[in-house]
Each structure stands twice: as structure tokens, then as C-alpha cells.
């Protein structure tokens, strides 16, 4: 059998030369070994499938590392001059879609722009370059009694700039909201090559202290755009009062990089000063929901979340431990945890804990502690520190993560809806991982996203083994099925409510908005007049829309019809 060769696209020499002139030869490469490193993103089932199929379209033609906003802008200008596609790249933690084009694509990796430029105590904000991460900003801010209000599930892996263009969900959404609520301004090199600054900083002579620009707010167009509006080069994030001391207690370093190594000491640290983490288990889903609602409406705490089955891989040091703990139902499936901080005084902690205890007594929950399931509370110890600052990218001991169903809404409806959506999806397509059935279909992750507990986010993730293409395809089907299910049931925005790039669902789901795709395509045209940036993501350009394969559209229409929606035409 003839061996199929995978040959990446190459840039025309004049384009490469023009780019090299901007950054110098040491910060640009089209070496095969280098470009391959950028050819599959973290949460990228499409990229993985292309690897299996030896499809080169996810392999960038070159990687370029600018060192400043000015260099980013110059690169974008060159790309526009030569009509060359390009993608912004921070850490590759993106959900879906690498360069989804068969044309040569420039990957603009902003890893050299990695400084915390300033922490301003007066305006309680920090100015960061695009590649600065949560760990950096928290380390700098905590020295000044401030913090950014949360971190997602992988501190050093997530960059705030790219998070601003995507989801930005973190554990302390309950008090601080998602990252989108915590951005003062961004500096964006638009896809067309202009500089756009949002917030008060956009007005000459005004400091960067307020999040709304003059008049209509343009940040809301960038937020959640998945990179289609341009490249964020600087971001000013809000900071909040931090009572937990000038540094965080660190667990011992020195974990060997051995897959089967399982000493929990590296994951175990105490909660920071003036912080308490309360774990509660419930006898059933109904009592869990009742408690979540009551705690939410008590308006206390910084974080209020239910982990469901997630603890199994989150707190297990090896894949084998994960599987064993799921099988043995080691962790209580119906649970929640409350993060309490004493910002006003120590007495705030006592007050809030008393309120939680009242509610748990009312709802039939039981606190996990040394007297009740001591082994479980010990195994949950990674959360003590991680409720504030995640260091767990390596600890996610499950298979690859290739997509999510993330719904929003009031706790009762969103929790039940997620169970229903997920159950239907796995009934239709089957499961991809041990946590799918009897796990996420029963107890999805729930994040309170509002201090009155008015609205919540749920998360049901897909974890196929990336070495098996059929599981990757199944994972994709589960995600798309879930999204279409929510739309067909007229339940909220589904997974697309957080700015996750979900094309082709945006373009072929006119029910959303309605016709949100028309508005978004118009917005993309404003930012990206040549349709070059982040091809295939979030909202197709007109050209991408027209070129979307008939066969794929037919598949999408089949899924629509399965959920009672009429097929759509281009």
C-alpha cells in the first residue's frame, strides 16, 4: 500500500522574507519540526483527526514570534498585503480548530510577550502582555494584597489574553463572575491591522481604570470572538482585595515526570490564610440542587461549585487511580464545595460558615471532614490551594479533552437540562470515557456565576482517547448533538454562550439570535475585511461559509432533523 505523505503548505518566499524582516531570523521558522509542534491544539479533536488522516491543513506554514504590539501589527499588515491567512496563538489551549484552511497560514505565537507590566493598587488592576498567565499575575498582585479573582483549571497553561477571547470560566465565578467581567481593557491588533484599545484607556489622556469605552462598548465584540477579531497584545485585568497573605503555601516541588508516579504530597497544600474550603456531600441530586440554590441566594462565599464526577480524575495522581475511583465510586457524586474568604475580617469567615451550616442542616447534606470520610477529604486536598490557584494541568488524569457542552441559566433548569442533553447524546452516539455514563449524565459540573445564585454554568466534557479516531469522531458528535439539542429545545445559547468557537454551528443555526450569524459575520467583516484571521473559527467569513463542504452541511442537517429542526440551506 502506498504510504500517504503529509506535506505542509509553504509560504511564498517573498511573504516569508517580509515577515523575517520584522522579527529577525531567530524568531521565525518554517522548519518541519517546529511547525508540527503547532499543528494540534489541546482541545482540538479536528486537529487530532487530521493527524490520523495525514491531512496537512492544520500545520501552519510558519511560526513567528513577535516581541511587541508593533511587531504584531507589522506582521498583520504583511499578511493583509499578501492576503495570507494567520492565526493568533498563545498556549494552544484552544477548544476546536487549528488553522482550518488549506491555504498557507502564519501562526503568530506571542510567547515572547509574557510580562506583567504593572500592578496598580489605586485602580486595582494589572496590565499584562498577551502571554502572561494566572500564576504570574497572582504572584505579583498578592504581594500588594490583591488578586485577579480566580483562575481556570490550569494556571500556567492559560493565558489571560486568549481566555478573554474565549470562555474565562473559573471557580470563583460565584463572587467575581467570569473573566469577561474582570477585564478593564484590551489592546487588540485587529485582523485588518489597526490598533483598537477598549475601556477608558482608549481616550487620550485617560488612565486605564474603567471597562467601558466611550458610548457603545466594543469590548463585547472582541470578548468571545475566538480570535476572529484580531490579536490581543495587552490586557488590563481587574484585581480584588486579597486577604490571604503575600504568597500562597506551596506543596513540595520535585514531582518526577513518570506517568505511574503517585505521591500525593506534590498536590497537597493547605488553604491560604483567611480562606476556608467546605466540602459537602448529599444523598441525592435533588438535595444537592436545593442546597446550591440556598447557598447561592445567601449571597456568601467566593466560590460555589459542584464537581460531580470530576474529582475522580482531578484528584487522582494517575490514570489508573482515576479509573479505580470511578469504578468504586470513591468520591461522593452529589457534592458541592464552598470557597470562603475573610476579606472584611476573620469574622466574615465565621459568619459565612455558620450560614452554610444552617443550609446544610436544612437540606440533609453532610460535611466531609476528618470525622466523616477522612480518606475522601484527604484525597480532595489538591483543591485546598487549587480553589485559588490551579496548578493542575498535569493532574488531569483522564484522556484528552476535546470539547464541552456548557449551558447557562438558573440552577434547577440548567442542571436538569445538562443531564437531559448529555443523556440523549450518549444514548445516541455512545460514550467516549468512563465518566460519561453514570457520571456527567447524572452530576454535571456546576459553577455558580452570580452572587445571588441567579445563573449558573454547567460543563459536560468529552474525553476520548486521541489514538482512536472513531472515539474522536464520537466525541465531536456528542458535542454538536448537545448544542443542537439545546437550540432545538429553545434552551439558551448552549455551548456557544461563552465564546467557544463552534463553527459550523454558528452559521447553520439561524434559530440563535435569531440569525446571530448574520450580525456576527458583519462584525467580522469590520474587524477582518480580508477574511484572514483565525480561519474557520467562531464565525465563518463569507468565503469560508460558501466553501463549507456540502457533505458536512448534509451531516449537520441530518443532526438538525434528528432534533426536529428543518434543514438549512446555504
Amino acid at each position, binding site marked *: 500500500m502506498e504510504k500517504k505523505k503529509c506535506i505542509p503548505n509553504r509560504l511564498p518566499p517573498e511573504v516569508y522574507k517580509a515577515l523575517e524582516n520584522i522579527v529577525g531570523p531567530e524568531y521565525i521558522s518554517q522548519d518541519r519540526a517546529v511547525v508540527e509542534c503547532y499543528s494540534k491544539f489541546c482541545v482540538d479533536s479536528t486537529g487530532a483527526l487530521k493527524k490520523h488522516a495525514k491531512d496537512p491543513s492544520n500545520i501552519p506554514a510558519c511560526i513567528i514570534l513577535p516581541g511587541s504590539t508593533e511587531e504584531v501589527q507589522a506582521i498583520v499588515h504583511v499578511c493583509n498585503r499578501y492576503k495570507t491567512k494567520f492565526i493568533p496563538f498563545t498556549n494552544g489551549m484552544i477548544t476546536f480548530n487549528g488553522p482550518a484552511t488549506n491555504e498557507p497560514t502564519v501562526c503568530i505565537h506571542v510567547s515572547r510577550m509574557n510580562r506583567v507590566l504593572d500592578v496598580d493598587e489605586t485602580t486595582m488592576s494589572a496590565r499584562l502582555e498577551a502571554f502572561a498567565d494566572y500564576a504570574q499575575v497572582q504572584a505579583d498582585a498578592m504581594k500588594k494584597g490583591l488578586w485577579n479573582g480566580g483562575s481556570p483549571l490550569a494556571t500556567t497553561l492559560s493565558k489571560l489574553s486568549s481566555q478573554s477571547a474565549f470562555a474565562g470560566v473559573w471557580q470563583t465565578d460565584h463572587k467575581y463572575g467570569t473573566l469577561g467581567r474582570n477585564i478593564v481593557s484590551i489592546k487588540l491588533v485587529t485582523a485588518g491591522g489597526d490598533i483598537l484599545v477598549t475601556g477608558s484607556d482608549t481616550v487620550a489622556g*485617560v488612565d486605564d481604570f474603567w471597562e467601558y469605552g466611550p458610548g457603545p462598548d466594543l469590548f463585547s465584540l472582541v470578548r468571545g470572538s475566538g480570535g476572529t477579531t484580531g490579536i490581543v497584545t495587552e490586557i488590563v485585568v481587574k484585581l480584588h482585595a486579597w486577604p490571604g497573605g503575600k504568597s500562597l503555601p506551596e506543596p513540595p516541588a520535585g514531582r518526577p515526570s513518570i506517568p505511574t508516579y503517585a505521591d500525593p504530597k506534590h498536590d497537597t497544600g493547605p488553604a491560604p490564610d483567611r480562606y476556608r474550603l467546605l466540602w459537602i456531600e448529599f444523598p441525592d441530586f435533588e438535595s444537592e440542587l436545593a442546597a446550591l440554590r440556598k447557598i447561592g441566594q445567601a449571597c456568601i462565599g467566593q466560590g460555589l461549585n459542584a464537581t460531580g464526577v470530576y474529582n475522580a480524575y482531578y484528584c487522582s495522581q494517575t490514570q489508573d487511580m482515576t479509573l479505580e475511583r470511578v469504578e468504586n465510586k470513591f468520591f461522593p457524586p452529589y457534592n458541592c464545595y464552598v470557597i470562603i474568604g475573610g476579606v472584611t475580617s476573620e469574622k466574615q469567615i465565621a459568619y459565612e460558615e455558620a450560614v452554610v451550616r444552617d443550609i446544610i442542616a436544612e437540606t440533609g447534606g453532610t460535611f466531609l471532614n476528618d470525622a466523616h470520610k477522612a480518606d475522601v477529604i484527604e484525597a480532595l486536598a489538591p483543591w485546598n490551594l487549587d480553589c485559588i490557584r490551579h496548578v493542575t494541568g498535569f493532574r488531569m488524569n483522564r484522556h484528552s479533552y476535546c470539547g464541552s457542552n456548557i449551558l447557562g441559566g438558573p440552577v434547577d433548569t440548567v442542571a436538569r437540562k445538562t443531564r437531559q442533553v448529555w443523556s440523549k447524546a450518549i444514548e445516541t452516539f455512545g460514550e467516549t470515557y468512563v465518566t460519561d455514563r453514570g457520571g456527567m449524565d447524572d452530576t454535571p459540573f456546576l459553577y455558580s456565576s452570580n452572587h445571588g445564585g441567579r445563573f449558573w454554568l454547567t460543563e459536560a466534557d468529552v474525553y476520548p482517547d486521541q489514538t482512536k479516531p472513531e472515539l474522536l469522531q464520537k466525541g465531536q458528535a456528542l458535542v454538536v448533538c448537545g448544542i443542537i439539542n439545546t437550540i432545538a429545545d429553545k434552551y439558551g445559547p448552549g455551548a456557544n454562550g461563552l*465564546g467557544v468557537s463552534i463553527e459550523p454551528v454558528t452559521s447553520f443555526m439561524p434559530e440563535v439570535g435569531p440569525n*446571530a450569524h448574520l450580525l456576527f459575520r458583519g462584525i467580522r467583516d469590520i474587524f477582518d475585511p480580508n477574511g484572514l484571521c483565525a480561519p474557520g473559527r467562531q464565525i465563518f467569513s463569507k468565503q469560508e461559509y460558501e466553501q463549507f463542504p456540502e457533505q458536512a452541511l448534509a451531516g449537520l442537517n441530518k443532526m438538525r432533523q434528528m432534533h426536529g429542526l428543518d434543514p438549512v440551506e446555504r
Partner: protein
Amino acid sequence: MALQKSDIEAIVGAGNVADDDATIAAFSSDQSAVAPRRPDMVAYVQSVEQIQNIVKLANETLTPVTPYSSGLNLHGAAIAGQGGIIINMSRMNKILALDEDNWYVIIEPGVTYEQLQNHLVSKGYRIMVPFGVPPGRSVLTSYLERDPVMAAPSFEHGNFLIMDTELVLPNGALFKTGNWTSGGEPGAPAGPIRNSLFRMWTAAQGTLGIMTKMGLQIEPIPQRKVFFIPLHNVACAVKPLKQIQYREIGTECLLLNNFNLAAMLNDEWTVPADFPAAPASTERFTALRSLLPPWVLIVSVNGLPRRSAEKIAYEEEALRQVCDEANIELLETIPNISGAAQLFESEMLRPWSILKKFNFKGHVRDLTFKCPVNKVDELIEIASKTSCDGGYNCTHIGVYVLPLERARALHCEIDLHCLMSEAATVNSLWLKVSEALMNAGAYFDRPYGAWAPMVYGRAAGYSDMLRNLKKETDPNNIMNPGKLCFTN
């Protein structure tokens, strides 16, 4: 083809379109310095479909449309700068839903603060209200225009309160944000796709669409204890204010000078129904001012739904600690003044007593801006000095300062007062003071009327993008044309 009255009558019904002189004159101006301009007609709509049909017709005939809810914007938003139709939504005034399980309401544009708050209070809830808002102002428009509410010092309780929205786009299409976006139940702000897309339509003065429904957070009415901190000047307020906010003490918090405080406390003055108002006697007002400290910081420590007294107690203790450390007094009333605590408890729900300030001279020219906390003293001084240099009696300046998000920023309102006969002079001075404040770093984030060219002239990149957005979404430029940076 020009749009005819009969065309609009065909949509909204005969008797619901007015083009008589009295009506046109009434809709030609507000109390602001924005120049009056006559619309061609005023259409009283009662449904979203009627709005959609008018907008579609306006596109066909290139007729400007100006949305109008209560007419109490006071910055010229509802003045039809290029004529055309005023779409008057004041009759769309239903409270469509009150969700007591999830603490939100759904309202139409004609619902006023007084109407909504009265309804909610009867059920044990409250809507967050901006200080000094007219009770007849549209809640929907006020939130859309980013009026900061009194609870804005609290990150959790006073900001990001808009949930789902429904609007008519400039092409007449209906569009929804939040959970509503798929056509089902409301209940969350995110979506479609972009997490906080609704923000695009804020502070837009109706130039990018007409919002027709809005979901807003409400909360149970809290128990509270109000405290007063007398201060000699703004400079000595900065440090305790910052510390109080850093420790997240209290929910509502505002700083008033004695001009504004005396206006609120003057029981001989009433809240005017219309703006501008008729000037009234100032004798009692002047006497009250002489009894008041120059500045007073007011802090409301609120309970929560559970163990309310315990919550108030630990915050009060922390507040006393901050004041002791700063060597300033913490009082439960204002010396020499009776009823101050009761007044402010009431103001937390219905904060319109400050509107009595219109009794002073009838007209108020406000300077509303935001700034970092370390600039507030300097900016107030600049406003005062520039006014004095321009011949204004600088003892006649009212000042209100509101911390935003635990004093990350401050919202400031500085008022210049004038009689009708002084309006031209004071308008000119008001522009000079505006310019001086902008030059010193004050941020006018809602650049309405005469402020528009001054602010957008300093924000070229942002303005260009806004114009592109306007061109893309409103290619016929029918939505309230001429406002903001959309001058062509």
C-alpha cells in the same frame, strides 16, 4: 419617498400618531444644553411588532427614527437631531415577569423606576436604583445608558445587572441576547456566542437599535444600618474611602458636599415633576448648609438574607476600626439634623430627594465623569476653579461621588446651577469646565451632546471602529442619526 403620517397610522393605529405643534414642541427639547430640534411626528407604539414595522418602513424611506421611553435622559438622547419619527415607547410599560425563584424581572421600556420599585417593594424585593434618577425615568433606558446604581460600590450587587435582552436591530429584525437567544426562557446574560454582547448597545442612545425588553437582577430588600462620616474636604475622604472599599464594608456608599446634602434635607423643597423646574426660596436651604459639615461620606451596611444582624455587626465593627485608624468620626446621624438616618434608609430604595436641587435655580448643568480615586480631589478643584474663573459662584456647586467596584473607579457628578436667564452663560462655562476636566484626565464615558466631539476627538481608533459598526448595522443611518460620533 417621504414617510407620511398615514403610513405610521397604518402601523400603530389612528390616534396614536401626533404631529400637532404642541406635541412636536414638547418633544423638541429636554433640560439639557442640547439644541432643540423638531421631529416630524411622534408615534405611540404598543408592541415590538409595531416598532419593527416602523423601522422597516423608515429604512425604505430613509427616515430617521429616534427611540423615546420616558424623555428623562436629560442629555438630548431623545431629541430627533435630524427630524423624522420619534418612537414613543412610554405606553409599553408592563412588568412582564417577576421571577421570585431566581430574583429577576422582565420589563418593557416604559416601566419607570417608581412603578417598578413600588411593585417590587410590595413583594419584598428591590431593583438597584441610581442616585438622583427621576422617579419617572425608564428603568430599561437607565440601565442601557449605564447609569451607575447606588449599590455600585459592591462588585457583586451593583454592577452587571442586565440579564436577557430583546431588541429591534436597525434593519427591523428582532434580536435577543442571553438565554433568550434561542427563543425560550430567559435567565442568564451570556449569549449568543459572545458572552456579554448586550454591552454593545449600552450608552448608544438608540443609535444601534431599539431595546424593547430587558431582564434585570433584583434582590430581597436587606436590613441595613446607615453611617455618616463628616469630613472637611475631599482629600481627607480618599484614604478612608479606599480602605472601607478595600475591606468590602457596606454596599451603598456615597460622598456628598453640603450643597447636595442640604438640598436633600430641605423639607421646604419638593422633587420636581418636570425639568427644568421653577426656582424656589433658598432661605431654608442656606440655613441647612450652614449646619452641615463640608462633606459627608455615607455608608450603608447591609444584611444578607440569612443571619442578617450578624453580618451587619461584623461589618460595623470593621467600619469602626477603619475610622478609628483614620482618626475620623463615625456617626449614626448627622449632627444638628434630625431624620438623616431615616432619610437615607428611604433613599436606598427611592433615591430621588437629590432632585430637589432643581429648586435652587431651576436648571442644572451636570458634569458626569469617572476617574481614579487618586484624581478626584484634583478634578473637583479644577471644576471649582474653572467655574470661579468664569464668573460662577463656586459655592453653588453640588458634588456627588460614588465609588465603583470597591473604588477601582469613582463616578462623579458636579452640578452647575443656573436660572433660565443665565443659561447661555452657564452653558458656555459648562463646556469650558468639561474641557478642563477632560484635559486633566476625567473620563466622560457617556459622551452625549456637546461632549461627543470632545471625547471622540481624543479616541480616533475607537471612533473609527464605532463608525464602521454603525455603517455595517445601520447602512441607511436611520437610527437616531447625528448622535455620538455618528455625525454624518
